[in-house]
């Protein structure tokens, strides 16, 4: 299983659609927002957590189509599902590798983009923590979308359409936790724990659903 994690990360890094591409896409989204919102720095500060979260959300969807479709195209998927390892665990590892190559770099790049959006260091810290807790859920939910679209040669768009509605709870609790940290009238712990719970929950349910899907879509 360690071998699989290593292969996924190395392969994603070499294909160029991994870490760097996600961060660059994130950068583009974040850069475009101030132009749309205008030069009001107070408004920008207020919107910053939402912008960062939506940017991270969209960037995390990149590479989900590579998760199974590419494996199927080069014939590896057959061999991955044939082995004695539980398929669910294989998918869990693949989702984790996806997070390591897209989600984690986004979290690490957040301070830089926080400055661009006029965020205070404390707010940047909170945003990073919520992204760290929430982005794995996007990768885990993403496995389901990727498994549904595995047979479609250009399934990337469909995956985004399937996955985005499902990650709305992640977004809600992520933003609520940030609001709670900066505003004393709202709680931080509650939404944040919900966010962690969603990630843990989807880490089991996502790979489980995807494994059932892959077994049944065999052809």
């Amino acid at each position: 299983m360690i071998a699989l994690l290593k292969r996924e990360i190395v392969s994603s890094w070499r294909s160029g659609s991994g870490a760097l591409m996600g961060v660059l896409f994130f950068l583009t989204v974040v850069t475009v927002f101030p132009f749309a919102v205008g030069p009001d720095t107070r408004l920008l500060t207020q919107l910053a957590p939402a912008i960062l979260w939506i940017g991270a959300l969209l960037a995390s969807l990149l590479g989900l189509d590579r998760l199974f479709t590419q494996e199927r195209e080069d014939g590896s998927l057959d061999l991955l599902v044939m082995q004695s390892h539980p398929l669910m665990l294989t998918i869990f590892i693949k989702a984790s590798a996806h997070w390591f190559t897209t989600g984690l770099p986004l979290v690490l790049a957040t301070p830089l983009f926080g400055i661009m959006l006029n965020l205070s260091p404390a707010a940047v810290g909170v945003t990073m923590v919520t992204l760290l807790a929430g982005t794995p859920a996007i990768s885990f939910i993403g496995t389901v979308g990727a498994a549904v679209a595995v047979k479609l040669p250009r399934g990337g768009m469909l995956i985004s359409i399937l996955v985005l509605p499902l990650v709305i709870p992640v977004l809600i609790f992520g933003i609520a936790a940030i609001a709670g940290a900066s505003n004393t009238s709202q709680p931080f712990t509650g939404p944040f724990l919900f966010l962690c719970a969603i990630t843990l929950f989807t880490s089991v349910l996502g790979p489980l659903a995807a494994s059932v899907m892959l077994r049944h879509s065999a052809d």
Partner: protein
Amino acid sequence: MKLIVENLALSRGGQQIVSGISFELTAGEALVVTGENGSGKSTTLRGVAGLLPLDHGQVCLFDETGKQFEEPVREYCHYLGHKNALKQNLTVRENLTFWQDFMGDTLLSVEEALEEVNLSHTIDLPSNYLSTGQKRRVAIAKLLVSDRPIWILDEPTSGLDAQSVDMFSHHIKAFCEDGGILIVATHLPLGLKDTKTLKIGTEPL
């Protein structure tokens, strides 16, 4: 070890492609699956390898004492399909090392396996630099790095030159002599003796 396939029926896209496939293979035996293009050879092999849901019938594996293995048969199989299961952007060594670690049951080392298919010089090249025939040979080396008692090979010689076909026949002969069970779909005579033959899709009119 004995592989029994009983009355197998398989469909693709809602249409039944093959039905009534039955055969028995004991350790050391080989089955050559023949038939016209589109007759359902690949479908049959994928069914036996557990990659397609069976409409009907069963695939069972028994040990020497006649006890059935509890694990699905697919876990005892090497499957070599039309595609080579190599990641384009990884080197030959990385690809083979990964499959060896992931499949377990190490047989030959990656270096030895590549030596067997005469590709030692390509070990550190990215797989997409290899020619079609070379990729196929790496896929054959993949059969040698992990130990599996059953090999299911779908047109294994496609893209190979005459010399490589000889090399490949030598390997499958050695595999059968060691007590392996071989199921191969092919149009070429592979120099195997005493094979069973399964002809698909040739019902007399």
